[in-house]
Protein backbone atom coordinates (compact mmCIF):
# COMPACT_ATOMS: atom_id res chain seq x y z
CA UNK A 1 0.00 0.00 0.00
CA UNK A 2 1.25 3.46 -0.92
CA UNK A 3 0.31 6.30 1.42
CA UNK A 4 1.15 9.86 0.38
CA UNK A 5 1.30 12.54 3.04
CA UNK A 6 0.61 16.07 1.86
CA UNK A 7 -0.84 19.22 3.36
CA UNK A 8 -1.44 22.30 1.27
CA UNK A 9 -0.03 24.54 3.99
CA UNK A 10 3.61 24.02 4.92
CA UNK A 11 4.69 23.28 8.47
CA UNK A 12 1.56 21.42 9.52
CA UNK A 13 3.40 18.20 10.38
CA UNK A 14 3.77 16.12 7.21
CA UNK A 15 7.23 14.87 8.12
CA UNK A 16 6.23 14.36 11.76
CA UNK A 17 3.34 12.14 10.65
CA UNK A 18 5.26 10.45 7.80
CA UNK A 19 8.36 9.48 9.80
CA UNK A 20 6.27 8.42 12.80
CA UNK A 21 3.99 6.32 10.62
CA UNK A 22 6.98 4.59 9.01
CA UNK A 23 8.55 3.96 12.41
CA UNK A 24 5.37 2.64 14.03
CA UNK A 25 4.57 0.36 11.07
CA UNK A 26 8.12 -1.05 11.05
CA UNK A 27 7.93 -1.69 14.82
CA UNK A 28 4.78 -3.66 14.01
CA UNK A 29 6.87 -5.99 11.80
CA UNK A 30 5.71 -4.64 8.47
CA UNK A 31 8.17 -4.04 5.63
CA UNK A 32 8.21 -0.29 5.20
CA UNK A 33 9.84 2.25 2.90
CA UNK A 34 9.96 5.99 3.49
CA UNK A 35 10.34 8.15 0.35
CA UNK A 36 11.19 11.82 0.79
CA UNK A 37 9.58 13.47 -2.25
CA UNK A 38 10.17 16.99 -0.92
CA UNK A 39 13.33 17.16 -3.02
CA UNK A 40 13.68 20.94 -2.69
CA UNK A 41 14.22 20.62 1.02
CA UNK A 42 14.15 17.00 2.17
CA UNK A 43 14.20 16.75 5.96
CA UNK A 44 12.99 13.24 6.78
CA UNK A 45 16.63 12.18 7.10
CA UNK A 46 17.01 14.46 10.16
CA UNK A 47 14.60 12.21 12.05
CA UNK A 48 15.12 8.79 10.49
CA UNK A 49 18.92 9.24 10.45
CA UNK A 50 19.38 6.62 7.73
CA UNK A 51 22.60 4.99 6.77
CA UNK A 52 23.02 5.97 3.10
CA UNK A 53 24.21 2.97 1.12
CA UNK A 54 24.04 4.34 -2.38
CA UNK A 55 24.16 7.79 -3.96
CA UNK A 56 23.68 8.41 -7.67
CA UNK A 57 22.99 11.41 -9.88
CA UNK A 58 19.47 12.26 -11.04
CA UNK A 59 19.35 13.40 -14.64
CA UNK A 60 16.54 14.92 -16.58
CA UNK A 61 16.31 14.48 -20.36
CA UNK A 62 16.69 17.87 -22.03
CA UNK A 63 15.74 18.41 -25.66
CA UNK A 64 18.47 19.46 -28.05
CA UNK A 65 17.54 20.68 -31.53
CA UNK A 66 19.49 19.60 -34.59
CA UNK A 67 19.40 22.99 -36.34
CA UNK A 68 20.34 21.25 -39.60
CA UNK A 69 17.12 19.21 -39.66
CA UNK A 70 14.83 21.79 -38.00
CA UNK A 71 12.40 23.47 -40.42
CA UNK A 72 11.20 26.01 -37.77
CA UNK A 73 7.64 24.71 -38.08
CA UNK A 74 7.01 25.62 -34.42
CA UNK A 75 5.10 22.42 -33.53
CA UNK A 76 7.43 21.75 -30.57
CA UNK A 77 6.85 25.25 -29.22
CA UNK A 78 3.06 24.81 -29.51
CA UNK A 79 3.22 21.41 -27.84
CA UNK A 80 5.29 22.57 -24.87
CA UNK A 81 2.91 23.16 -21.94
CA UNK A 82 5.68 24.84 -19.99
CA UNK A 83 6.54 27.60 -22.46
CA UNK A 84 10.13 26.35 -22.58
CA UNK A 85 10.52 26.44 -26.37
CA UNK A 86 10.46 29.47 -28.66
CA UNK A 87 10.52 29.23 -32.41
CA UNK A 88 11.52 32.59 -33.84
CA UNK A 89 12.66 33.19 -37.39
CA UNK A 90 15.36 30.68 -38.23
CA UNK A 91 16.00 29.60 -34.66
CA UNK A 92 14.44 27.22 -32.15
CA UNK A 93 15.40 28.22 -28.60
CA UNK A 94 15.11 25.84 -25.67
CA UNK A 95 15.06 27.18 -22.10
CA UNK A 96 16.15 24.11 -20.18
CA UNK A 97 15.40 25.59 -16.75
CA UNK A 98 11.68 25.63 -17.63
CA UNK A 99 11.68 22.12 -19.12
CA UNK A 100 9.75 19.43 -17.22
CA UNK A 101 11.36 16.68 -19.32
CA UNK A 102 7.99 15.37 -20.51
CA UNK A 103 9.37 14.43 -23.94
CA UNK A 104 6.39 15.94 -25.80
CA UNK A 105 8.54 18.06 -28.13
CA UNK A 106 10.51 15.12 -29.48
CA UNK A 107 7.27 13.18 -30.01
CA UNK A 108 5.64 15.89 -32.13
CA UNK A 109 8.71 16.87 -34.19
CA UNK A 110 7.95 15.75 -37.77
CA UNK A 111 11.61 16.07 -38.80
CA UNK A 112 13.00 13.98 -35.96
CA UNK A 113 15.21 16.96 -35.19
CA UNK A 114 14.92 16.79 -31.40
CA UNK A 115 16.93 14.36 -29.34
CA UNK A 116 17.10 14.22 -25.57
CA UNK A 117 20.34 14.42 -23.63
CA UNK A 118 20.69 13.89 -19.87
CA UNK A 119 21.35 16.89 -17.63
CA UNK A 120 22.20 16.32 -13.94
CA UNK A 121 19.70 18.06 -11.63
CA UNK A 122 20.27 16.39 -8.25
CA UNK A 123 21.06 13.23 -6.32
CA UNK A 124 19.19 10.11 -5.34
CA UNK A 125 20.17 8.70 -1.95
CA UNK A 126 19.04 5.28 -0.80
CA UNK A 127 19.70 3.46 2.44
CA UNK A 128 18.05 2.21 5.59
CA UNK A 129 17.01 3.51 8.98
CA UNK A 130 16.87 0.33 11.08
CA UNK A 131 14.02 -1.67 9.57
CA UNK A 132 12.76 1.28 7.46
CA UNK A 133 14.06 1.46 3.90
CA UNK A 134 14.90 5.01 2.97
CA UNK A 135 14.93 6.92 -0.34
CA UNK A 136 15.35 10.65 -0.82
CA UNK A 137 15.95 13.01 -3.70
CA UNK A 138 18.03 16.15 -3.31
CA UNK A 139 17.55 18.76 -6.01
CA UNK A 140 20.57 20.88 -6.90
CA UNK A 141 20.49 24.45 -5.63
CA UNK A 142 19.24 26.78 -8.38
CA UNK A 143 17.35 24.01 -10.20
CA UNK A 144 13.73 25.12 -10.56
CA UNK A 145 11.99 21.97 -11.80
CA UNK A 146 11.55 19.25 -9.22
CA UNK A 147 9.13 16.77 -10.89
CA UNK A 148 11.88 14.79 -12.70
CA UNK A 149 13.71 14.35 -9.38
CA UNK A 150 10.47 13.24 -7.71
CA UNK A 151 9.92 10.68 -10.48
CA UNK A 152 13.42 9.34 -9.78
CA UNK A 153 12.62 8.96 -6.06
CA UNK A 154 9.38 7.11 -6.81
CA UNK A 155 11.18 4.97 -9.38
CA UNK A 156 13.66 3.83 -6.72
CA UNK A 157 10.93 2.67 -4.32
CA UNK A 158 11.64 -0.83 -2.99
CA UNK A 159 8.95 -3.48 -3.08
CA UNK A 160 7.50 -3.43 0.45
CA UNK A 161 4.14 -3.78 2.19
CA UNK A 162 3.85 -0.12 3.12
CA UNK A 163 5.36 2.80 1.20
CA UNK A 164 5.16 6.23 2.82
CA UNK A 165 5.60 9.21 0.50
CA UNK A 166 6.48 12.44 2.31
CA UNK A 167 5.33 15.14 -0.14
CA UNK A 168 6.24 18.79 -0.64
CA UNK A 169 3.79 21.44 0.60
CA UNK A 170 1.36 23.22 -1.70
CA UNK A 171 -0.83 21.90 -4.52
CA UNK A 172 1.33 22.57 -7.60
CA UNK A 173 3.30 20.30 -9.94
CA UNK A 174 5.72 18.83 -7.35
CA UNK A 175 2.80 17.72 -5.16
CA UNK A 176 0.81 16.31 -8.08
CA UNK A 177 3.88 14.33 -9.16
CA UNK A 178 4.36 13.01 -5.61
CA UNK A 179 0.77 11.94 -4.88
CA UNK A 180 0.01 10.50 -8.32
CA UNK A 181 -0.62 6.75 -8.12
CA UNK A 182 -0.92 6.54 -4.31
CA UNK A 183 -3.57 4.29 -2.73
CA UNK A 184 -4.38 6.78 0.02
CA UNK A 185 -3.61 10.45 0.54
CA UNK A 186 -3.34 11.83 4.06
CA UNK A 187 -3.84 15.60 4.26
CA UNK A 188 -2.22 16.92 7.40
CA UNK A 189 -3.73 20.19 8.61
CA UNK A 190 -3.89 22.40 11.66
CA UNK A 191 -7.11 23.94 12.98
CA UNK A 192 -6.32 27.54 12.03
CA UNK A 193 -7.71 29.79 9.28
CA UNK A 194 -4.49 29.30 7.28
CA UNK A 195 -4.58 25.56 7.79
CA UNK A 196 -8.21 25.37 6.66
CA UNK A 197 -7.69 27.61 3.65
CA UNK A 198 -4.89 25.46 2.29
CA UNK A 199 -6.65 22.23 3.28
CA UNK A 200 -9.51 23.24 0.98
CA UNK A 201 -7.05 23.67 -1.90
CA UNK A 202 -5.52 20.28 -1.15
CA UNK A 203 -8.98 18.67 -1.04
CA UNK A 204 -9.81 20.17 -4.44
CA UNK A 205 -6.56 18.73 -5.78
CA UNK A 206 -7.28 15.28 -4.33
CA UNK A 207 -10.77 15.30 -5.85
CA UNK A 208 -9.49 16.44 -9.25
CA UNK A 209 -7.02 13.54 -9.19
CA UNK A 210 -9.75 11.15 -7.92
CA UNK A 211 -7.61 9.99 -5.01
CA UNK A 212 -8.87 8.36 -1.82
CA UNK A 213 -8.02 10.79 0.95
CA UNK A 214 -8.56 11.58 4.59
CA UNK A 215 -7.49 14.30 7.01
CA UNK A 216 -5.09 14.24 9.95
CA UNK A 217 -5.55 17.20 12.30
CA UNK A 218 -2.27 18.05 13.97
CA UNK A 219 -2.03 20.31 17.04
CA UNK A 220 -5.73 19.55 17.29
CA UNK A 221 -6.44 21.57 20.44
CA UNK A 222 -5.26 24.96 19.15
CA UNK A 223 -7.19 27.39 16.92
CA UNK A 224 -10.87 26.88 16.22
CA UNK A 225 -13.35 24.18 15.11
CA UNK A 226 -13.70 25.29 11.49
CA UNK A 227 -11.68 22.34 10.12
CA UNK A 228 -14.09 19.86 11.77
CA UNK A 229 -17.14 21.79 10.50
CA UNK A 230 -15.70 21.85 6.99
CA UNK A 231 -14.86 18.12 7.01
CA UNK A 232 -18.34 17.26 8.28
CA UNK A 233 -20.03 19.38 5.61
CA UNK A 234 -17.82 17.90 2.89
CA UNK A 235 -18.10 14.33 4.27
CA UNK A 236 -14.34 14.04 4.64
CA UNK A 237 -13.03 11.47 7.12
CA UNK A 238 -10.77 12.75 9.90
CA UNK A 239 -8.50 9.75 10.40
CA UNK A 240 -6.47 11.02 13.35
CA UNK A 241 -6.10 13.94 15.72
CA UNK A 242 -2.76 14.70 17.33
CA UNK A 243 -2.88 17.07 20.31
CA UNK A 244 -0.59 20.07 20.68
CA UNK A 245 2.26 19.21 23.02
CA UNK A 246 5.46 21.05 23.79
CA UNK A 247 7.16 17.65 24.13
CA UNK A 248 6.64 17.08 20.37
CA UNK A 249 8.38 20.37 19.56
CA UNK A 250 11.21 19.52 21.95
CA UNK A 251 11.67 16.09 20.36
CA UNK A 252 11.59 17.72 16.92
CA UNK A 253 14.30 20.20 17.92
CA UNK A 254 16.49 17.28 18.97
CA UNK A 255 15.86 15.49 15.65
CA UNK A 256 13.74 12.77 17.23
CA UNK A 257 10.59 11.32 15.75
CA UNK A 258 7.44 12.33 17.60
CA UNK A 259 6.24 8.72 17.86
CA UNK A 260 9.63 7.63 19.17
CA UNK A 261 9.78 10.17 21.99
CA UNK A 262 6.20 11.03 22.92
CA UNK A 263 4.13 7.96 23.89
CA UNK A 264 0.71 9.51 23.38
CA UNK A 265 1.68 10.54 19.83
CA UNK A 266 2.85 6.97 19.12
CA UNK A 267 -0.58 5.87 20.36
CA UNK A 268 -2.35 8.21 17.91
CA UNK A 269 -0.15 7.14 15.00
CA UNK A 270 -0.78 3.47 15.81
CA UNK A 271 -4.50 4.29 15.83
CA UNK A 272 -4.12 5.98 12.45
CA UNK A 273 -2.36 2.93 11.03
CA UNK A 274 -5.12 0.65 12.33
CA UNK A 275 -7.80 2.92 10.90
CA UNK A 276 -6.09 2.83 7.53
CA UNK A 277 -5.55 -0.94 7.60
CA UNK A 278 -9.11 -1.64 8.62
CA UNK A 279 -10.07 -0.08 5.29
CA UNK A 280 -11.83 2.93 6.74
CA UNK A 281 -14.14 4.53 4.25
CA UNK A 282 -12.59 7.74 3.06
Amino acid at each position, binding site marked *: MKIAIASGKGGTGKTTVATSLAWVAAADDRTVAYLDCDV*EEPNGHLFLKPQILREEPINKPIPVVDQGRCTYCGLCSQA*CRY*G*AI*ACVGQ*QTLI*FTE*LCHACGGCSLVCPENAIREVPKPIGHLRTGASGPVQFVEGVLNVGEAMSPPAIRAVKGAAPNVELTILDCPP*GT*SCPVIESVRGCDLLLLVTEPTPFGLHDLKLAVEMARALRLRFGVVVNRADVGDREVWDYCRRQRIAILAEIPDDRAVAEAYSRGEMAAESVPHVAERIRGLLETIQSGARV
Partner: protein
Amino acid sequence: MKVVVTAQGRDLDSLVDPRFGRARCFLLFDTDTGQSTAHDNVQNLNAPQGAGIQAAQTVVQLEAEAVLTGHVGPKAFATLQAGRVVIHPGATGTVRQALEELRSGRLQPAARHSSEDDHSQRLAGRNE
Protein backbone atom coordinates in the same frame (compact mmCIF):
# COMPACT_ATOMS: atom_id res chain seq x y z
CA MET B 1 8.59 50.35 -39.46
CA LYS B 2 6.36 48.18 -37.27
CA VAL B 3 6.69 48.69 -33.52
CA VAL B 4 5.05 46.81 -30.65
CA VAL B 5 4.29 48.77 -27.47
CA THR B 6 3.17 46.89 -24.35
CA ALA B 7 0.01 48.64 -23.16
CA GLN B 8 -2.51 48.54 -20.35
CA GLY B 9 -5.36 49.25 -22.80
CA ARG B 10 -6.23 48.92 -26.48
CA ASP B 11 -5.53 52.41 -27.86
CA LEU B 12 -2.67 54.90 -28.22
CA ASP B 13 -3.76 56.89 -25.16
CA SER B 14 -3.48 53.87 -22.84
CA LEU B 15 -0.59 53.73 -20.44
CA VAL B 16 2.49 51.68 -21.31
CA ASP B 17 2.39 48.37 -19.44
CA PRO B 18 5.80 48.13 -17.74
CA ARG B 19 5.66 44.33 -17.78
CA PHE B 20 6.61 42.67 -21.03
CA GLY B 21 5.59 39.01 -20.70
CA ARG B 22 2.47 39.75 -18.70
CA ALA B 23 1.47 42.95 -20.47
CA ARG B 24 -2.29 43.44 -20.80
CA CYS B 25 -2.07 44.13 -24.52
CA PHE B 26 0.36 44.49 -27.42
CA LEU B 27 -0.28 47.53 -29.61
CA LEU B 28 1.24 47.06 -33.05
CA PHE B 29 1.95 50.48 -34.57
CA ASP B 30 3.08 51.13 -38.13
CA THR B 31 5.19 54.30 -38.15
CA ASP B 32 4.78 54.65 -41.93
CA THR B 33 0.98 54.62 -42.03
CA GLY B 34 0.16 55.69 -38.46
CA GLN B 35 -2.19 52.67 -38.19
CA SER B 36 -2.33 50.57 -35.04
CA THR B 37 -3.89 47.25 -34.07
CA ALA B 38 -4.39 45.80 -30.58
CA HIS B 39 -3.43 42.20 -29.71
CA ASP B 40 -4.53 40.79 -26.37
CA ASN B 41 -2.08 38.83 -24.26
CA VAL B 42 -4.66 36.99 -22.13
CA GLN B 43 -3.03 33.60 -22.54
CA ASN B 44 0.30 34.78 -21.13
CA LEU B 45 -1.26 36.92 -18.38
CA ASN B 46 -2.24 33.75 -16.56
CA ALA B 47 0.59 31.47 -17.68
CA PRO B 48 2.36 29.89 -14.72
CA GLN B 49 5.74 30.22 -16.40
CA GLY B 50 7.41 31.13 -19.66
CA ALA B 51 5.18 34.19 -20.27
CA GLY B 52 8.10 36.35 -21.46
CA ILE B 53 9.28 33.74 -23.97
CA GLN B 54 5.82 33.25 -25.43
CA ALA B 55 5.17 37.01 -25.53
CA ALA B 56 8.46 37.48 -27.40
CA GLN B 57 7.37 34.83 -29.87
CA THR B 58 4.09 36.73 -30.41
CA VAL B 59 6.02 39.96 -31.06
CA VAL B 60 8.18 38.19 -33.65
CA GLN B 61 5.09 36.70 -35.30
CA LEU B 62 3.58 40.19 -35.53
CA GLU B 63 6.67 41.04 -37.61
CA ALA B 64 7.61 43.95 -35.38
CA GLU B 65 11.10 45.36 -35.77
CA ALA B 66 11.16 47.02 -32.35
CA VAL B 67 9.43 46.68 -29.01
CA LEU B 68 8.83 49.44 -26.44
CA THR B 69 8.18 48.32 -22.89
CA GLY B 70 9.19 48.84 -19.27
CA HIS B 71 11.25 45.82 -18.40
CA VAL B 72 12.39 42.71 -20.31
CA GLY B 73 13.71 39.66 -18.47
CA PRO B 74 16.63 37.52 -19.67
CA LYS B 75 14.65 34.76 -21.43
CA ALA B 76 12.35 37.15 -23.29
CA PHE B 77 15.38 39.24 -24.20
CA ALA B 78 17.17 36.24 -25.74
CA THR B 79 14.03 35.27 -27.67
CA LEU B 80 13.47 38.80 -29.03
CA GLN B 81 17.13 39.00 -30.04
CA ALA B 82 16.87 35.69 -31.88
CA GLY B 83 13.90 37.18 -33.74
CA ARG B 84 15.97 40.31 -34.56
CA VAL B 85 13.63 42.60 -32.67
CA VAL B 86 15.26 45.76 -31.26
CA ILE B 87 14.36 46.18 -27.59
CA HIS B 88 13.69 49.59 -26.05
CA PRO B 89 13.05 49.17 -22.31
CA GLY B 90 12.29 51.99 -19.89
CA ALA B 91 9.23 53.29 -21.76
CA THR B 92 6.77 55.25 -19.58
CA GLY B 93 3.66 57.39 -19.94
CA THR B 94 1.13 56.72 -22.67
CA VAL B 95 1.75 54.64 -25.77
CA ARG B 96 1.64 57.86 -27.84
CA GLN B 97 4.31 59.45 -25.62
CA ALA B 98 6.52 56.35 -25.83
CA LEU B 99 6.30 56.36 -29.64
CA GLU B 100 7.24 60.04 -29.65
CA GLU B 101 10.23 59.27 -27.40
CA LEU B 102 11.30 56.62 -29.89
CA ARG B 103 10.87 58.97 -32.86
CA SER B 104 12.93 61.69 -31.18
CA GLY B 105 15.67 59.18 -30.32
CA ARG B 106 15.31 59.64 -26.55
CA LEU B 107 14.30 55.99 -25.99
CA GLN B 108 17.44 54.03 -26.71
CA PRO B 109 17.75 50.30 -27.44
CA ALA B 110 19.20 48.04 -24.73
CA ALA B 111 22.19 45.82 -25.34
CA ARG B 112 21.31 43.42 -22.56
CA HIS B 113 18.25 42.50 -20.53
CA SER B 114 17.14 44.85 -17.79
CA SER B 115 17.05 42.27 -15.03
CA GLU B 116 19.80 43.33 -12.64
CA ASP B 117 19.16 40.47 -10.34
CA ASP B 118 19.14 37.04 -11.96
CA HIS B 119 18.68 35.44 -8.59
CA SER B 120 15.22 36.95 -8.15
CA GLN B 121 14.32 35.65 -11.61
CA ARG B 122 15.18 32.13 -10.55
CA LEU B 123 13.27 32.45 -7.30
CA ALA B 124 10.28 33.74 -9.21
CA GLY B 125 10.20 30.52 -11.22
CA ARG B 126 10.68 28.20 -8.30
CA ASN B 127 7.10 27.23 -7.55
CA GLU B 128 6.01 26.29 -10.99
